[in-house]
Structure formats: structure tokens, C-alpha cells
């Protein structure tokens, strides 16, 4: 009864440009920790092997340190690991893999499927049919060769590939590296472990994308998981168990504020988010000066609480109320300028006007506070 852990798309060596340096470093660290978490998971569930379906590395030229750290992180699971080159780390004549081998960084229990063929795990009675990418992109179905690979009858046939299942996935993932939708059936596979799609996704009863174990984008759904696959015997349907591996949850919120209650609701939701969150917040609509102050305070708190907070308020207009203006004691021509800017927010130079208004408000506020003291 072979049982293995299916993961993919580690994208090691990736850095995060959208975040401040400190946050970026933490997110990178989380990916290394994810590998260790996978090893732990494999042990806990007594898996026979760990299959990594491509894109272990984000690029061919990552630092030697990154290479070593990746393989070091696998140390937690002493069973066989089968790693498949994907489109980011294709097995080119010179690749991150050949480099890892030269560095002597690959432990003995890690099998690098650098050439098409079968990795036979005799002890576990697992035949891993590998379709590594040996070019950056191909336009032929590399898994087609699986059909010709003969394996012992008593062995479970597991395909390991990286690419997009044709006719199923949206256009925005690579249209290259195609994989036939009926591959499992056509090549008599018990299971086809796929990589490339960063969220967990089932294609049919034998074909799965595991998704990346630690999210690195906002737009993938169901990222941050790994699959534990159990196959009773050759030909039996696989039992697939979804396991959460992510340390951080990535959220992308697009909110439109129009009335005060919208702000209330937004602040409540912020409150509810766990600390291990990475939030990308984009606000539109309009807000009063008093509301903006509340928002500022809430975001300041959230910034400290969450792993990372990105907020874009460029589309959020300031709509000072009469009370706002009165509170600022903006008499005379200052009042006129505030009124002008408020109107200009809707014009061509809206963003500048909005910024200008915010600055003016803050200066006036500081002055009134000073005066109050």
C-alpha cells in the first residue's frame, strides 16, 4: 500500500520586491521552513516517498547557499525524494541541478529526475515515471512517453510532470509545456502528480496539482498545501488527503468605501485577520477626514500586527465634511483651497489633489493641535 507526499512549485530563491526588506526576508525564510514542514509531514504520515513536481528552484542561477539550504531542509525525511526539473529549473545542459551535483549538495536519498525515464523505488514498489523539462519551454507533451515506459506489474505507476493540462486551466499560466487531459488513462497511470499551478487543484480522480506549500502570490487560491496520496494497489483509485503547510496566508482585498459603515466593516475584518497574514489592501471610494484618521490609526495597528501590509489609497478620495473643515479652523482662503482640492480630486489630476488635500489637512490639524496646547 504505497503512500507518498505530493508537492511542487517551491520556487526557492525567489525574493519579494513588493515588500519591505524585513518582510521579504521573513517570507523567504518561510519557504525554507515549508520544506522542513513537508519532511515532518512525510514522517508523521509514514510516507514512502516525497514527489516534487517541478520548480523546486525559482531560477537556474540561485546562490550556492540557497542550493545547499534547500537540500539541507530535506534532511527531516530520510526516505526517497524525487525531484523533477520544471520550467524555472529545467534540466538544461548547465542548470541549477548540475550545479547542485557539482557542489555535492544532493543527499543520497534525493533522486534528481534530470532525464526522462522511470525512477524505480523497488522497496516501496513505486515506479515514478518522470517527464522532466530539459528545455525552458516545450510545445510537445512530454508525458506522452509515459505510455512506452514498462514497469513491473506489482509496482504502482505514478507519473511526475510539470506543465499545464490542456483545455482546463485558464490562459494566464504558461500555454507551453502541455499535458494531455487523459494522460493518466492513456498511459495507465495510477496517479499523475503535477506541478506548475500554485493552488491545489484536482483534474480528475487520478490527476492533481498539489500547489505550492507556501504561498508567494496574492492571486492563487488554495495555495499553501501538500497532498498525501495513498494507493492500495496498482490500478486502485488513489486516496488524496489535503494538508495545510503554509505559514502565512496571503490576502488581497479590494474595498470600496462610501459611507462610514463601510469603514467600520473594513476595520472589523482587519481585526479578525490572524497575525500570520500578508495583506494587500486597495481602497477606493471616498472618506471623510475624520474617517481617514481612524483608518490611519487602524492600518498603523495592523501594520505592526501582520507579517506585512500593503495599502494603496490612491483611489480613495478625501471628502472633508463641514465639521472636518471647521475642526481644522480653515477660514479664509484656506477654506477655499480645501474646497477647490476636494473638487479637483475628480478631475484629471485627482491623485495630486487628493495628496495635496491630505497634506493640507495634516498641516492644519497639527496647527490646530498646537494652538489647542
Amino acid at each position: 500500500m504505497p503512500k507518498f507526499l505530493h508537492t511542487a512549485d517551491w520556487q526557492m530563491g525567489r525574493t519579494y520586491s513588493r515588500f519591505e526588506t524585513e518582510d521579504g526576508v521573513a517570507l523567504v525564510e518561510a519557504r525554507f521552513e515549508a520544506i522542513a514542514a513537508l519532511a515532518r509531514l512525510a514522517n508523521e504520515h509514514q510516507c514512502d516517498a516525497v514527489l516534487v513536481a517541478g520548480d523546486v528552484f525559482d531560477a537556474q542561477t540561485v546562490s550556492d547557499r540557497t542550493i545547499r539550504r534547500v537540500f539541507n531542509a530535506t534532511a527531516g525525511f530520510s526516505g526517497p525524494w524525487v525531484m523533477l526539473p520544471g520550467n524555472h529549473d529545467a534540466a538544461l545542459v548547465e542548470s541549477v541541478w548540475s550545479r547542485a551535483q557539482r557542489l555535492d549538495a544532493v543527499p543520497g536519498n534525493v533522486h534528481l529526475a534530470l532525464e526522462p525515464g522511470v525512477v524505480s523505488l523497488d522497496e516501496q514498489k513505486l515506479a515514478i515515471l518522470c517527464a522532466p523539462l530539459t528545455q525552458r519551454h516545450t510545445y510537445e507533451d512530454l508525458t506522452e512517453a509515459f505510455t512506452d515506459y514498462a514497469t513491473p506489474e506489482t509496482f504502482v505507476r505514478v507519473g511526475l510532470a510539470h506543465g499545464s493540462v490542456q483545455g482546463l486551466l485558464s490562459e494566464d499560466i504558461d500555454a507551453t509545456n502541455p499535458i494531455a487531459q487523459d494522460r493518466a488513462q492513456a498511459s495507465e497511470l495510477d496517479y499523475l502528480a503535477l506541478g506548475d499551478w500554485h493552488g491545489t487543484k484536482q483534474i480528475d480522480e487520478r490527476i492533481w496539482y498539489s500547489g505550492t506549500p507556501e504561498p508567494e502570490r496574492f492571486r492563487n487560491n488554495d495555495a499553501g498545501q501538500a497532498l498525501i496520496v495513498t494507493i492500495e494497489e496498482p490500478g486502485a483509485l488513489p486516496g488524496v488527503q489535503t494538508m495545510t503547510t503554509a505559514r502565512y496566508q496571503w490576502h488581497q482585498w479590494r474595498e470600496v468605501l462610501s459611507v462610514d459603515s463601510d469603514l467600520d466593516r473594513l476595520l472589523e475584518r482587519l481585526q479578525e485577520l490572524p497575525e500570520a497574514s500578508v495583506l494587500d489592501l486597495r481602497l477606493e471610494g471616498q472618506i471623510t477626514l475624520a474617517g481617514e484618521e481612524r483608518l490611519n490609526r487602524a492600518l498603523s495597528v495592523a501594520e505592526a500586527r501582520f507579517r506585512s501590509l500593503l495599502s494603496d489609497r490612491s483611489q480613495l478620495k478625501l471628502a472633508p465634511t463641514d465639521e472636518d473643515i471647521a475642526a481644522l479652523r480653515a477660514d479664509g482662503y484656506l477654506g477655499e483651497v480645501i474646497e477647490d482640492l476636494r473638487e479637483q480630486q475628480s478631475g484629471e489630476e485627482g491623485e495630486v489633489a487628493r495628496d495635496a488635500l491630505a497634506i493640507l489637512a495634516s498641516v492644519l490639524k497639527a496647527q490646530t493641535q498646537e494652538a489647542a496646547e
Partner: protein
Amino acid sequence: MKLQKLQVEQLRQFQQPLVLDNLQPGLNLIHGPNESGKSTLVRAIRAAFFERYRSKSVDDLRPWGDSGAAPTIHLEFEHQGTPWRLTKSFLKRTRCDLRVGTTTFSEDDAEEKVAELLGYEYSKKGSSKAEHWGIPGLLWVEQGTGQEVQKAIEHAGDHLQSALNALVGEVASTGGDAVIETLSAERNKLLTKTGQPTGDYRKLLDERQKLQEQKTALQDRVFQYQQYVDRLQSVTRDYQRDQQERPWEKAQQQLGEAQAKLIKLEQLEQQQQQETQTLNHIDQQRTLTEQRLEDLQRIDQQKADRKAELEQAEQSLRDAESREPALAEQLKTANADYEKAQNRLKVARLLAERQRVEKEIERLTQYKSVLVENRNKARKHQAQVTEARQMAAENRIDAHAVHELKATDQALSHERIRSQAIATRLSWELEAESGVMLDDTLLEEQGEQQLLDVSHLTIPGVGRFEITPGGEKLAETRRKLESLEQAYSDQLTQLAVASVDEAEQRKLAYEKAVQQRRHAEELLHSVAPAGMETLETELSDVEFELKSHAEHLQENPLPANAENGLSLLDAEAIHSRAESHLKDCERQQREVETLLMGRRQARDSAFAEWQRLDQETRSPERQQQLKNLKQRLEVLTGERAKAQANLEERANEIRLAQPDILRQDIERYRITIDNLRNRQQERDREIREIRARLDAWGAEGLEEKLQEVEADFERCERRYQELFRRANALELLVKQLNEKRQALTRRLQAPLQKHLDHYVSLLFPQARLALDDQLQPDTFTRGSEFGPVGELSFGAREQMGLISRLAYADLLQEADRPTLIILDDTLVHSDQNRLDDMKRILFDAAKRHQILLFTCHPEKWQDLGVLPTDLEQVKKAAVPFRKAGAGS
């Protein structure tokens, strides 16, 4: 506001109270000479308002030397119908009391109340300064500061602003200027004046640029890395394929085949070479044989040639021999000729010598005759000289003495004539024989006598008369005459002559003799210049020579055939010709002899040659040799034809084998093999090279680094965008705020400008004084003239200053603010015309405001239309009416 009464006491020179209580609502002219207390009054008014009653800094108010004084000022004025009374005492007694209508205030309250009304502040410490004076600082002009309106307006700023706000009903932003200032400062942190990034913004821009460059560089390298990987991939594929297929081995096989063909061909070529050598050998043999045959046949020709040469030599010899006899004859004749010419030359020479001697004799004979003649002549001239000498000796006389004698004679005759002129003349006519006797002489019938001495006339018969000549000089004359006569006779004696004539003759004779002697001497010299003796010697020499020549001729008699002898010149020419001819003949003789010798020898050798060849041609060996050679030649010709045929056959075989193409093929195969092997090696090398490079580059973690740089760049970009937006927003804010503020200022300016225009038009009909946004007089325009007020003349600036102040006063009045105008000796720099205009302006302003004009030049302001107040008079009046003044 109208000031109605002013009273001062114990203040500077006003120890006693001084009261001004007839102040008019309009213009008040207060005048007095210097030191009369004008300035003290102005100071008093200022102190009453500006100085705090408890100020310690008002010592200047104290009368001189009176430390116990309490300077006191009492003011009464009215504003908007309400009477105000202010009394302030300083120093010794500090008090301030104010009554407004019926309400009273005291101390600080009183002071605040007044300050609020007039619009000024108190100094927090020390005496009041210009910055505290507010509106009064603008309307009260101190002596000599009329032109300094700018500071005054600044100091009045807030009060003016509030007055203006009230007037135009606008709310100028209370904190507006501060906000603009804050925002401008913020803006200036990011942008320069011209809107260029600066400070952090600038740094970010630079950093962004730097990161962008790093990013691009890394991207390039990543791209290059990938290119290398691709290259490695393709080269490796090619390398492995060729290792498998080994294309160079096929080429090697083709090369082997071609080389085998070439070996065969080379054998043919070798054969061809050998055959060619054989042919060449035969040809050589033939040539040699032919040459020997030719050599043999050539002896006959040589014999014939020698024969001809022999004949030629014999002929030449004969020619030479034939010339010999003629030449001998010629030589003989030449010898005879030469001898004959020699003899003739001898005779000619003898003859020529004789002729020369004869000619010499002839010349000497002639010379001798000349010499003899000269000797004779010389002798004659010698005699003449002697004769002339003798004559000269006989007639020798002193020419000088003769001259003196003649002079004496002349003087004597002259003296005689003189004596006769002065002598008594006695003339007479007597009867015949009267016998009258003068002295001892008997007188004739008729006569005359000069009488110099006492003479006696005796008339016979009559007796004797003594006649004594008269005249003074008669005696002197007579003595002189006697002395001369004596001298005359002495000189004659001396010269041994009887008379003057004789002396003259002798002198002439002497001179002639001297002349003759000289002439004779000259002639003598001409014939015998060296003297007689020399002449004689010469003559004897000539005679001797003649004698020796004659002897020579006698000794060398003339030869017999001398008659037909030639001249020496001709003889010599003939001789020379004969000699050269003889030499010529001798030379020819020698030449012919040499020629003959040579030709005989040539003839002999030619003969020997011919003889040798003649013998040789006749030998039997030679005949045999000739036959043998001809046979040999025939054999060789046959052999050659055969060899040639072989050679042609070989060439054909070689041509068919295409040697050039074969060799090209071999070269081609070789190059191909080399190329294939080299290419493979090159690939191997490139693979190793690329691997090494990729290994090195791979160690750098290029893409990871690139991602990091990209992250840095994006962070920088985000920060930059933030600042970019902030900068733009600040720029917009500052711009809009300033625009609003300026628009507001313009609205505030309008009423002030109106008043200003009013006054300026009174002064200069076409002019305009513009205000800046601080409500300061800024630029002055008059027709085409245009410029800042600050650049006007002092006088004009003072006038503009006053106009501005009056305009402000109008404005303040419209805003219901009190306006009291105090001018301390103002407009002193204005000319008469301008002053007249300014008077008009002041008069006009005084319709609306109370004006106190203090001056020490009342005459300048006579036509102001007001009654002037003479401070001196007020002072005089002050004492008697003190109580009355204080009470009113």
C-alpha cells in the same frame, strides 16, 4: 479722532505747565524756532501713548537737573462722539488715568484701552520702539523719516489687516500665511526653486538610477548566461553527434584511395623522366658528333684563310719596301739643303754685325761734332761772362745812394723856388749905363733880382742903398738851403760824380753789365750743363770709342760673296725650315724601317701557319676519322626517333590519369579531415570553456541577485513615487494657496489704491503708484517712466511716503479707526512747486483728518490757509493763564 487739548508739565524744558488748547479739527500749524520745544511736544504725545507709565526708560522726559520731577502729560480728545481724557505721569509719580465718556480706567487697564483704540503695542521691556508703534507709527511722522514708509507699514501690519478685513468684509485666513510658510518649507525640502528634485527626493532619484543600472547590468548578464547555456546545449549536441558518426573517418578512406592512385601516377612520371633523360643523352651524343665532324671539316677552310692571309702579308711588305728608295733620296736632299742654309746664316750674321758697328761709328762721329761745337760755344760764353764781370766792376755804384742824391737834389731845387718866392724882388729899368751897382755887381739896363740878404745898391752918383729883405722865414729858409746845398755836394763827393746825371749813367751801365753776365752764364750752362771739364771728358771718351770701332772693322773684313747675302731674319727662317724638313725625313725613314720589320715578321708567321695546315690536310688519319664520324651520326639519329616515340606514349598515359585533379582531391580530403577534427576539438574546447564560465557565473547566483536588486529597485521606486506624489501635491498646494492669497490681497488693495490714486493725481496728473501684495508702495509710473519707489529722489520719496500715509489714514477712517496725523517738520526736501502741490494735498486730507504740523519754517506754510500757532507765544502766555488753561 480729534485731539482737543494737550498739556505738559515738568517735562524737559517745560518745567512749568504748557497748554495747547485751541487745536482745530483739521490742519494745525505749530511753529517755533529751534529749541523752542516743538520736538518736546511731539515726544510728549508719543510718550503719553507709547510709553508705559511705570517705564524706567523715559529719563529723557525729565527736566535737566531735576531728579525729583514727575513729567506729566494730559491729553483730551474725542472719537466718534465720545470724549477721552488721558493723564500720564512718569518717574517720580507713576500714574495713568483715563476717562472715556463717563467710564474711568486707570493704570494698565487705561493703557490697554488707549492702545486698542489707536492700534499699537507696548514694549515688554525698555522704551517703546518703532516695531511697537503700530498705526500711529505710520501716521505720526518723526522729523527726517517721512520717506521711510515701508517699515512703518510692516509694523502696522496686523492692525491694518484687521481694518482692511473689516472694510472689504473678507476673512483673510487667520493661519494662512503660517500654513503657506510650513508648506513652502516642506516643498523646498523636495524641490528647488525651479521645481527640480533636491534633498532626499534627489537622492532617491539618484539611487533609483543606480539601481536601474545595476538591474540592467544584471539582466544583461542573466541573458548572457542563458545564451551561454543555449550555446553549450547546441555545441554539446553537435559534439556528441560527431563523436558518434565520426565523419572524418569517411574522409580518411577517400583520402587513402586517392593516394593509391597518386602512387601509380608518380611511377609513370618517374618513367617519363628516365626516358626524357635517355633522349637528352642521345641528343648530346649527336651534337658532340656533329661538332667533331664540323671541326674536321673546318681545317680546309682554315687553310684557305691562312693562304689568303699570307698573300695579304706579302703584299703589305711589298708596299712598304717600295716606299724605301724615295725616302732615302728625300733625306739626302734635305741634308744638303740644311748645310747650305747653315752657311748662309753664318754670312748673314757677320754682315749684320758689321752693319751695326758702322751705324755706331756714324752715330758717335755725329755726337763728337756736337760736343766740339758745344765746347767752342762754351769758350766764347765764358769770355763774355768775364767781360761782363769786368764792366760791372768798373761801374759799380750804390743804387740806394744815387736814389738819395736825387732826392736831395729835388729838395734843394724845391727850397730854392721857395726862397725866391719869399725874397725881396728888385727889378729895375735903367738908363743906359747908369752904372748902378748892386753890391759888387753892375746892373744892366733892365733886370730883376731876388734879394735874400742885406744887399747894397749903389747908384753912382746917388749913393748907396742898403736893402734888407723882410719876412720872418727868410733866414730859416736860407739856412735850410745852405744845409741842403752842403748835403748835395757831400753826396756827390761820396759817389765820386760831378752831377746827378753822371750818377744816373753810371747806375745804368752797371745794371746792363750785370744783365749781360747773367745771359752769358745761362748760355754757357745750356751748352755745358755739367761744366767745361765734363764736356771735355765726354769728348775724349767718344773719340776713344770711335777709334776702337774702326779697329774692329779692320779686323773683320767683309767676305767675298757678301754682295748677295741675305738678311739675318730671312736666313734664320730658311735655316729653321731646312732643319725641320730634315727631321721629318729622318722620322719617316725610321717609321718605314719599323713597318718593314713588322711586315716581314707577319709574312713569315703567316707562311708557317699555312705550311702547317697544308701538311695536316693531307694526312690519311684525318680521312679515316671523317668517315667514322659520319657513320656514328646516322646511328644516333635512329636511336633518337625511337626514344621520342616512347616519351609521347608516356605523356599520354599521364594525361589520362588527371594528376592535377587527383592532387586537388587529396588536398581537399586532407583539409576536410583537419577541419572535421579541428571542429570537434574546437567544440570540446568551447564546451570546457563555457562550462568553466557558467560555473563561475553560476556561483554568483545571478538571478537571485537580480531579484534582490529588482526588489531594492521597486522599494526605491515606491519611495520615490511617494515623494514624487508628495512633491507634486506640495507644489500644487503652495501654488493654489499663493494664488488665493494673492487674489485676496488684490481685493484688499483696491480701496487703498483708490485713495492713493486720489493723492497721486493731485501731485502728478498722469502718474500712478502701484502697491505690492504686502500693501507697500511698490512701483511708480509716470508716462513712460517706470521704476521702484526706492529709486526715486529723496524729495519724491518723502512726498510718496506722505501720500501713502494719508491714503492709509483715509482707509483707516473708512474702517472707523481713529486717525490723527502728526507731521514733524516734514517735506523739507521739496521744491516750491512740489510743496505747493503737497499743501493742496494736506489741505485736502485735513478735510477728513486732524493734522498737527510742527515746523520751524512757518514762512513756508503761510498759504496753508490756517492760523499758525506760535509756540513762543503760547509759552509766554502759559504762566499767567496757567490756571485758566488747565481748567478749560
